[in-house]
């Protein structure tokens, strides 16, 4: 022994401390940011405070979309499984399942048994308790899905199985009393327990490892021990509860009340009124007397009776013996051993868990600690959203309420006016998820809600912060720098945003700004305090231009599809560009699009629609603002604009062929037959309707006249391009319409008058070709291959009616400048005369009577359009039965003071424009005239 050795000990000790300090510095200094972030991840959570989404109103002030109160149901699993008898049963079954569920799978390898038979045997026993249907669920969603199974059914036998499972779990202080109660209820409700029930009980005990008489006796003994254990434990826990409450100055627990609640629950569900009264009396008695333990003792005596039955029933024994023998021969040995082992573990776990929970000893040095499980169980989770008040309130009612479930006020977006067309335009609202902002896979992760470090890190890796700028992937957990972005993301998550329609286009105005609460939580997820708060701002309301009265009428008209695949009706105030009604109905896709158009919808388009936020299958997406999905030709409704361009070019001197130089029809009384360019052409219009006069050509929609315009101009496109006519009459949707995706193919919509901006050439199309044999007539006409919607046509006619480029509007109080369209009044007058002639003696004259009866004939201007849509299956000679696009454009008002533009279309109908689309306009006008307000506002002269 020398001092040197002691000195060396000093050195050794010093070196050890030095090593510790070095290691410590690595954690506390060099990795400080990482650990600090993880500490914040533990303790901080960000609760968004979402703003009230503003109301959308109609033109008349009526509410179209509004936030209405609704209720979310939240579940705290720990409370649920401990206090709700059904949940206790489910939890018990889960536990049982997890303890015994794997028995069969490794049995053949471990014990050399016939696997199939073993599984069958085990499954037969398991199925008696319905554990098979309970499965291995752990969390709230599963529970709620199964909840209806456990709602009172009047079958006490069935309930009893779950009470049994509950009791077996040992994790609820209600299990024993539930069991007793169930027996008692069964006896009172249906007399003595049936043979089958007793048998099932015996088999239930057999699940604990019994097979045959000896095993059953052994299991009964074990069961009694278990019951005694539970009673003792329950008594201890009740004492602890009471002591704790007393210590904290609260009232002691009143255990009997909890069971009274069960009784009351059962009473409310009892179908038999007599039973209900009896139960009610019992409830009252227990409430008054409060002598629960005496009652419990009574139940125990009843249980003893059951037990004796089980022991003494010879028939049962014989029956059971056969059943058990089969199972025993195949699997009993392995099953019993396995269950025995698992049972001990189960019992041990149950006891430990229960004691630990009640004594607050969550950290078990021996068994290990599973804090997150407890934490998850303490967290409130929303399991059902948007529950109506009537349903929600029952969950909160005292005796009938479902313990462990709570109701939290929430909000729901409600579209008040489901007018078919307008509904989708108002659009959808849904909560913003992280996936919407950043490609984070957070689904299925129970810790996602408070994965702070995870968020920060992933945010850094996968997305730039809110302020933009490059992502520094080399930077290591830049906690503070990313905090802002993270908080922002948290605040946005859950915010309700508009996904389509007005909700989407007006989202910024409607949604408001989220608030944020920074919350301190403990390891159980319980809220302790609020660190900080960012204020919330509600959105601003929007008033639409939609006139609900007109919309309703229009919707009722388009909903009567008839033979058409689609119908659309648009009403515009031409002076302001306000869209008063916008309605469409019908199929989004024709039944067999490929037979009609090779460019029909495909998968990509479907995807596009879905990405755009439309649920085309579910909402009846409005067709008034979109093209027909196949051949979109508009036919002769384009002619007024062709006439205007022709007249303008003639006035400018760019076009020198006068109408009198055109070749038109010959003698009246026969169809037009003309040889042009070596080919014979035919026209479906009655002969003699052609004219050298623009007005008459428009009124009668003369195909030959407009064909001549095109032919002699060496292509109309060149003519139009010379004046950039697209800029005059092209549809140029205003911002909210583009954002609302009302013109989602805006790239193909650049005006009714053809021009360079047009993707499709507006050249005359050969209809009913002669098949190259030089026989049969051929009609050339214009207005084909034009991809415009009813809304576009209405917009163009509004410009025609006013001579100004009136921007369309869906929101009121917008400042809409309307510059001149560039057409001269003289030419407009001519075209107007043509449209008036159309009503009085032209293609729309068949409706002049109805118009006159409305007193509107003086102010009525119209144009019909019919585009032939061939079906391949039709023969050349059968074109009368072809299907058309039928159009009817109607302008109400004088030349100087137009009041209304109505455009109707019917797609894939046999009739012509006047016959199919005309009645829609007439019905609308008549409907409006019946409403005094609408008539005064929109039909009568000012």
């Amino acid at each position, binding site marked *: 022994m020398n001092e040197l050795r002691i000195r060396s*000990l000093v050195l050794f000790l010093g070196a050890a401390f030095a090593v*510790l300090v070095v290691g410590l510095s690595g954690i*506390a200094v060099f*990795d400080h940011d990482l650990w600090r972030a993880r500490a914040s991840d533990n303790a901080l959570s960000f609760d968004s405070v979402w703003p009230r989404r503003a109301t959308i109103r109609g033109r008349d002030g009526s509410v179209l979309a509004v936030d209405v109160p609704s209720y979310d149901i939240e579940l705290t699993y720990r409370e649920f499984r401990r206090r709700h008898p059904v949940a206790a049963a489910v939890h018990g079954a889960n536990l049982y399942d997890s303890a015994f569920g794997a028995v069969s799978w490794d049995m053949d390898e471990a014990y050399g048994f016939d696997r199939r038979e073993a599984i069958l045997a085990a499954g037969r026993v398991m199925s008696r308790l319905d554990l098979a249907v309970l499965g291995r669920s752990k969390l709230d969603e599963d529970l709620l899905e199964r909840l209806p199974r456990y709602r009172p059914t009047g079958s006490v036998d069935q309930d009893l199985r779950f009470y049994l499972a509950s009791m077996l779990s040992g994790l609820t202080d209600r299990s024993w009393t539930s069991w007793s109660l169930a027996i008692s209820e069964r006896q009172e409700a249906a007399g003595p327990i049936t043979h089958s029930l007793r048998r099932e009980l015996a088999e239930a005990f057999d699940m604990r490892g019994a097979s045959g008489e000896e095993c059953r006796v052994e299991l009964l003994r074990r069961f009694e021990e278990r019951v005694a254990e539970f009673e003792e434990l329950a008594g201890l826990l009740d004492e602890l509860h009471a002591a704790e409450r007393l210590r904290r100055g609260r009232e002691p627990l009143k255990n009997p009340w909890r069971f009274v609640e069960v009784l009351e629950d059962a009473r409310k569900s009892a179908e038999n009124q007599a039973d209900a009264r009896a139960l009610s009396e019992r409830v009252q008695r227990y409430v008054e007397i409060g002598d629960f333990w005496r009652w419990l003792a009574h139940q125990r005596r009843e249980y003893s009776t059951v037990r004796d039955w089980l022991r003494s029933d010879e028939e049962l024994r014989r029956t059971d013996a056969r059943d058990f023998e089969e199972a025993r021969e195949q699997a009993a040995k392995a099953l019993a051993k396995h269950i025995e082992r698992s049972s001990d573990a189960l019992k041990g776990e149950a006891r430990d868990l229960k004691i630990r929970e009640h004594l607050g000893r969550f950290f078990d*040095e021996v068994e290990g600690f599973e804090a997150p499980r407890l934490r998850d169980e303490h967290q409130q989770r929303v399991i059902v959203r948007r529950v109506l008040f009537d349903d929600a309130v029952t969950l909160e009612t005292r005796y009938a309420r479902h313990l462990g479930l709570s109701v939290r006020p929430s909000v729901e977006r409600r579209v008040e006016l489901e007018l078919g067309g307008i509904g989708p335009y108002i659009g959808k609202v849904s909560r913003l998820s992280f996936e919407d902002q950043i490609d984070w896979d957070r689904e299925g992760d129970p810790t996602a809600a408070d994965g702070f470090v995870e968020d920060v*890190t992933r945010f850094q890796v996968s997305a730039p912060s809110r302020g933009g700028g490059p992502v520094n992937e080399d930077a290591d957990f830049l906690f503070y720098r990313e905090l802002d972005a993270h908080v922002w993301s948290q605040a946005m998550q859950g915010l309700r945003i508009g996904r389509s329609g007005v909700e989407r286009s007006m989202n910024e105005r409607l949604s408001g700004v989220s608030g944020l609460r920074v919350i301190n939580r403990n390891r159980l997820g319980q809220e302790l305090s609020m660190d900080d708060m960012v204020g919330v701002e509600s959105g601003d309301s929007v008033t639409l231009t939609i006139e609900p009265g007109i919309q309703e009428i229009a919707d009722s008209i388009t909903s009567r599809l008839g033979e058409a695949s689609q119908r659309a009706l648009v009403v515009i105030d031409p002076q302001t560009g306000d869209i008063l009604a916008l309605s469409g109905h019908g199929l989004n896709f024709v039944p067999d699009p490929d037979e009609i158009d090779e460019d029909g919808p495909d998968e990509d388009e479907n995807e596009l629609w879905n990405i755009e936020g439309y649920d085309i299958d579910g909402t009846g997406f409005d067709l008034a603002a979109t093209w027909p999905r196949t051949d979109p030709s508009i036919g002769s409704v384009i002619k007024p604009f062709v006439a205007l361009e022709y007249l303008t070019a003639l006035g400018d001197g760019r076009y020198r062929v006068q109408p009198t130089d055109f070749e038109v029809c010959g003698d009246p009384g026969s169809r037009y037959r003309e040889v042009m360019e070596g080919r014979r052409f035919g026209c479906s219009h009655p002969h003699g309707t052609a004219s050298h006069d623009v007005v008459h050509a428009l009124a009668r929609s003369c195909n030959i006249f407009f064909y001549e315009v095109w032919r002699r101009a060496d292509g109309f496109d060149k003519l139009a391009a010379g004046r950039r006519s697209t800029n005059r009459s092209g549809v140029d949707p205003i911002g909210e319409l583009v954002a609302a995706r009302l013109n989602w193919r805006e790239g193909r919509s650049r005006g009714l008058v053809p021009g360079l901006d047009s993707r499709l050439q507006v050249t005359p199309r050969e209809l009913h070709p002669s098949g190259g044999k030089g026989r049969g007539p051929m009609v050339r006409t214009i207005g084909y291959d034009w991809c415009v919607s009813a809304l576009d046509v209405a917009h163009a006619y509004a410009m025609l009616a006013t001579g100004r480029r009136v921007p369309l509007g869906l929101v009121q109080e917008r400042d809409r400048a309307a510059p001149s369209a560039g057409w001269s009044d003289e030419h407009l007058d001519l075209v107007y005369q043509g449209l008036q002639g159309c009503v009085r003696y032209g293609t729309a004259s068949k409706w002049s009577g109805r118009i006159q009866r409305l007193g509107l004939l003086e102010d009525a201007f119209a144009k019909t359009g019919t585009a032939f849509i061939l079906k391949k299956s039709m023969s050349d000679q059968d074109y009368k039965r072809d299907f058309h696009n039928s159009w009817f454009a109607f302008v109400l008002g004088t030349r100087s003071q137009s009041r209304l533009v109505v455009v109707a279309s019917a797609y894939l109908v046999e009739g012509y424009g006047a016959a199919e689309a005309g009645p829609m306009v007439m019905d609308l006008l008549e409907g409006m005239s019946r409403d005094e307000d609408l008539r005064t506002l929109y039909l009568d002269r000012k």
Partner: protein
Amino acid sequence: MSSEATPIEPGRPADFLRRAEWWVAVWAIVISAAGYLFIRSATYGFDNESLATKQVLFLGAGAAVVLAVLVTPYLKLTRYVWWIYAFSILFLVGLPFLGVRINGAQRWYRILGFGLQPSEFAKVAVILGLAAWFRYRPAQGLRNGLLVPLAIVSLPVLLILKQPDLSSSLVFWPVMLAVCYAAGASIRTLVAFVVVGVLALVLAYFTLMHDYQRARVDVWIDHFSWTKEQVLTDPEVKRQLRVHGYQPWQALIAIGSGGMFGQGYLQGTQSRFDFLPYRSGDYVFAVVCEELGMLGAIAILLAVFALCLAILGVAMRTREPFGRLVAVGIAAWIGAQTIMHVAVCCWFVPATGLPMPLVSHGGSSTLAAAIAIGLVLNISARRPWTLGSTGFR
């Protein structure tokens, strides 16, 4: 008369007190005071808040114990060493029959509402036993230098393992090695023993350890290979961090989040929000790191090192072999247990529950430490004459 010439029995109490190595007491008081502060911090606002008050009581009792131990000349203890050892063994033997079971382990007797943990006092008894064994015997031989000390230590260790309390049992081995080494045992023998001990630990992992102990070792080994991304995304790693890795992981968060200067006294989020388990006992050092940061942790470690240094100084100045070896054993105990506690907190070793001497909450450990401090003061105050530098060899 100089202090070197002081007789075994000093003439006056004043001289006796003057000669005591009071730095030992000073450092012990400093560490104990810090311990009280952090026990208070760890329990502040929780149901077990009274632990801090209890710790004051234990410290007061400890002070009384120190004085009591100081009064009696330590050499008189040599007559009773084996009785003391035997009693400590008896206490351990009686645990399965009379002890209370808490958290699945029987480590305590319940006396007057307080828990008495015999294994803490067994440490003192073993140190006394080892010192007594080596007092008049040469330590070079295998029997004297290793086998008999091994037997002295093994008996209580086995009984403690039976409780089960693996962590407490581990403290005995560095103490034994230090005492044997200081007593002059062959270094080759000791090294061989260490090698065998490590192999035995490896063997125990595969054969003797409980599942939960093996899982703790597994997760400790695994955690060195975890990447930051795995911690965030790997479901298995996440699961481990919720189960067997929960305690050390939360301790690491506490230590790391403290940084250089800490979050401030009573401000540690891991403590305040109840994330850190056993923070008044097995993880009290993590609380120190979280609230005072690296600097505070170094200060505490320096204080413990200074205490060990002072005790070893007493050992060097004491020529009487029993007192010298007792001092060495006590220094080794306090130093080794502190190092192991810190290593557990930092997850340098698998997680196991071990209190930090004089800092962690615990009546038994405080009183046992007080006895040890009293013994050291006693030894320093009564350095007897000896004939040779190494006794009676």
